[in-house]
């Protein structure tokens, strides 16, 4: 790992970090603030009126406790979309833009191997997305504690966020692989942003149920074991597959970057 480069990466992503952190916090606190089992009945009324719309964004079911409430109204949409945007921005800023503009030449004209460079960029990205989700988790726990003391099942809430993080690491893997393979930013956006977005849209469609439900077998978002965590069922197989998939994508990115031609 190259420490000066790591420092630079963290400082260059700090603005985007705080922007997305603020946005997610806003939603998290609002949703927790709105927690009210009676309101849940009203919202399930919406589900009756707008069945497609609400279920597309994962907002189905009736919340019987605060955790379930948070899961229904945050983890089907907000907590999947915003971290994904952050990861796509990171992939561009830390890898793709250096290849696209040629500033990678600065890094490669220093006595550091390609492996160390790409490894540093990967670790920086993992650190940033982990920090983001940890900070959001902390905000969720604190605001629940203030607004509804003792209502939140903190252990399961943390488990839910750990699995969300693992899901984002897969997306980071896709994004990194795209950045390591592509020569130009536009191809990067086509694949690095396009594939996660398609997965996301497929997940929304499959949520709408009936015949479309089968689509859940072709999207990585199905790997987020939200329901299993809430209901206390076993979910380690989901986490394990997410870890393995992310590691495979990271390894393949490093392998590719290490031997590719860089016209910089």
């Amino acid at each position: 790992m190259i420490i000066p480069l790591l420092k630079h990466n963290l400082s260059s992503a700090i603005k985007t970090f705080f922007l997305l952190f603020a946005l997610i916090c806003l939603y998290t606190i609002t949703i927790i603030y709105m927690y009210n089992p009676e309101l849940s009945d009203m919202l399930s009324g919406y589900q009756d009126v707008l069945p497609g719309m609400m279920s597309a964004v994962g907002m189905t079911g009736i919340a019987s406790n605060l955790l379930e409430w948070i899961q229904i109204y945050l983890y089907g949409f907000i907590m999947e979309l915003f971290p994904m945007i952050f990861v796509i921005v990171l992939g561009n800023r830390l890898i793709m833009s250096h290849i696209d503009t040629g500033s990678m030449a600065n890094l490669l004209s220093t006595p550091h191997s390609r492996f160390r460079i790409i490894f540093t960029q990967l670790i920086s990205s993992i650190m940033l997305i982990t920090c983001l989700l940890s900070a959001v988790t902390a905000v969720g726990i604190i605001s629940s504690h203030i607004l509804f003391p003792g209502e939140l099942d903190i252990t399961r809430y943390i488990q839910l966020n750990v699995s969300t993080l693992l899901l984002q690491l897969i997306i980071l893997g896709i994004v990194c692989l795209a950045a390591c393979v592509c020569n130009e930013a536009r191809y990067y956006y086509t694949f690095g942003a396009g594939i996660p977005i398609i997965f996301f849209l497929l997940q929304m469609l499959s949520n709408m149920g009936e015949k479309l439900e089968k689509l859940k077998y072709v999207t990585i978002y199905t790997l987020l074991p939200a329901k299993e965590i809430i209901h206390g069922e076993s979910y380690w197989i989901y986490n394990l597959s997410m870890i393995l998939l992310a590691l495979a994508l990271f390894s393949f990115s490093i392998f590719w970057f290490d031997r590719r031609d860089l016209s910089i």
Partner: protein
Amino acid sequence: MKTIEVHHLTKDYGNKKGIFDLNFSVQKGEVFGFLGPNGAGKTTTIRHLMGFIRPDSGTVTINGMDCFSQHARLQQTLGYLPGEIALFNDMTGTSYLKFMADLKRVKDQTRIKKLMDYFELNPKGPIRKMSKGMKQKLAIICTFMSDPNIIILDEPTSGLDPLMQNRFIELILQAKKNGATILLSSHIFEEVEKSCDRTAIIRNGRLVTIENMNSLAQKKKKTYTVTFADQQAAQKFALDPSLPIQKVSNNQVLLSVNGAPGEILQKIGACHPVDMDIKTQTLEELFLHYYDEEVTP
């Protein structure tokens, strides 16, 4: 001892683009010019030397080490100035120099300060607001900050004003004095003429020739324009068959001279000319035919 060695290097991008069967070597302590028109393959060759791309076939080594697989080790003693300067635009000049010094493990800041003074660079302020020349200076300082003993320069003076171009050439000559091996790619003849020991000409991805600059200087012809009082005197002078007459026009005679001038000057003096002008053929004129002609490998 050979520092840089390129053997049968080929990189084919299709459409006749790329470089084909390139062979040359650069001796330790030599300044080697790399001259050619735009798109000739100079930068592609340099990318191989820097380990950015891999050859389709052939080998590229520096100090006996493969440029792609041993890239990180080679960079410890190498300085590189890219042709297209792309710095970290979100940084200030000062923080960029600090960042690059950290990455290159340069501990001593005095050399950086000296270079900034030498190029009259004030690196304060964000890089994205800097002019091309300032960015070029920043990149040059980065190249030389670690006092490298192998230096690869890709069109180094583009963007610099004439004063700074001269200073840059002096910097190269100084580095040469200190024993550095330098490869200088350029399409500016003057720059190459002032600094290089040998020069390769590359065109359409193929090596056309490698010229020794000293022997080239001797090959250079001089044109003497001798002006006489009238046409008659000029014609009388031109009658001497031992003179290398190029052209007679009115009262002027043009001579094309190669070698020591003594005897010819005496003959000119004996005919009492009213004026005389000497013009040396430029490197450009000598080399230009390599650019124009279709060269078959």
